[in-house]
């Protein structure tokens, strides 16, 4: 317990001290959400905001779990700390827990600023985003455990994956893929799956009633797939850098 907590505390401190992180998970979503005020007239406030909640969560878990673990591995620290702690699982769970807390902070700041700006802020809104976060945190983290297995330099992966995020985000909103009858391909996009889960939760809390594009079973199957990917990755992640000597 104490070992897991050690990784949790040190990671949370690192995240909160690295100011550039705020740019991606708070400032950018706030600017984008405020800049899209015309869009808000067409949809309910929570439906509009849930896209940004999903963006915040995915950005946090991609950078804070997948890429951070790849970096620890690349620099040889995963090797040292795993041998000190006795298992790589402490580092992995510590990273995931710190990202859940950081995402909660990001979601709160986002909801307060954007919700107040549009005059739709409520505690219920924050709670819904938290419930979505708690449900999605493990599947998303597990999916991004694929990253440390990619045989590429961490700096290159960092740039590439953060660049890919934006088109995936846009595609999940525009549903352009659905026009080609590829609805299951669309569900493979983590933004789409997370978005559907958030809409389901919002509907459950009666903040809005919207038609789901996918059934609960389809979403659960996709979540199961993410979890299976994660479990395989946890077993496969070795302690040695694939690109540099340590």
């Amino acid at each position, binding site marked *: 317990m*104490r070992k897991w907590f050690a990784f949790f*505390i*040190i990671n949370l401190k690192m995240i909160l001290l690295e100011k550039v992180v705020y740019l991606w998970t708070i400032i950018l979503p706030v600017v984008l959400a405020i800049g899209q005020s015309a869009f808000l007239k067409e949809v309910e406030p929570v439906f509009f905001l849930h896209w940004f909640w999903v963006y915040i969560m995915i950005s946090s878990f991609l950078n804070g779990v997948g890429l951070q673990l790849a970096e620890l591995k690349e620099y040889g620290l995963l*090797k040292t700390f795993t041998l000190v702690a006795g298992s790589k699982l402490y580092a992995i769970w510590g990273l995931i827990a710190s990202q859940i807390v950081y995402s909660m902070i990001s979601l709160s700041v986002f909801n307060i600023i954007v919700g107040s700006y549009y005059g739709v802020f409520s505690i219920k809104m924050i709670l819904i985003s938290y419930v979505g976060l708690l449900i999605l945190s493990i599947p998303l983290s597990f999916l991004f455990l694929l990253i440390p297995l990619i045989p590429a330099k961490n700096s290159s992966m960092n740039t590439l994956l953060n660049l890919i995020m934006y088109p995936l985000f846009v595609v999940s909103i525009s549903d352009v893929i659905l026009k080609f009858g590829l609805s299951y391909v669309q569900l493979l996009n983590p933004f789409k799956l997370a978005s559907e889960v958030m809409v389901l939760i919002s509907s459950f809390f009666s903040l809005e009633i919207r038609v789901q594009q996918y059934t609960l079973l389809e979403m659960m199957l996709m979540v199961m797939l993410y979890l299976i990917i994660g479990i395989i990755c946890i077993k496969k992640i070795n302690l040695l850098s694939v690109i540099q000597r340590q």
Partner: protein
Amino acid sequence: MYNVENLKFKYKKTDEYILDNVSFSLKKDKLNVIVGLNGSGKTTLFDCLTSVLKPESGQIQFPRYHDILYLTQTLFFSYELKGKDFANFIMRLDNKAKIKDPSSLASEEHPDEIQLLSKLWNRKIGKMSLGERRWLFVFFLTKIDKPLYILDEPTSAVDPISRLKIIEKMKQLIASGKVCVCSTHQLQDLLFEDCHIIFLHQGKIKYEGSFYDWLEINETQNPDIAFERMTKEIAL
């Protein structure tokens, strides 16, 4: 004592053995030092000893991996963290109580170390010199109680004062009954230490024994010249 017999290792997709029938023993009362050229297989050897890599064959009579403290070469950490953050991270990993003030360690550590620790306690890692950073990492990681300590080039790219402090830390471990093995290219640092040298070259052990016998065999008092002669002799 801990020993290795006929250890063989090669990476997948390569034909050449990185470690080829490597055998040696570690001495409890001496500083065990693995020396060799860059690429001679020192880090691969450490990875095999700690079960990070699986050897093809051979016997390793070493403690289990969780009874070994293995300090790797690269010590990357967020530059924004302070010395105390790293210290307490290691304390928590080792199931020990948080340290609030470095002076609380005064009873168990040397006054010079407490003084340096106090200086680094509230300093950001990014503001420390490489030597200070490495010393801090060695200081806290070696506080973790293990029977065997493996330090991969702990004095690499470090100023002489910090090097002496790191060597002193390893000597303290040995004095307290622990087994300590390190790798280094700073052979001059070993002149005044009681060392057991294990010379690894092209994946094979070419010499194992006392540091002074090694100098004598190579007919010099300069360890760098002895090193050069030994690698040349092998090449010939």
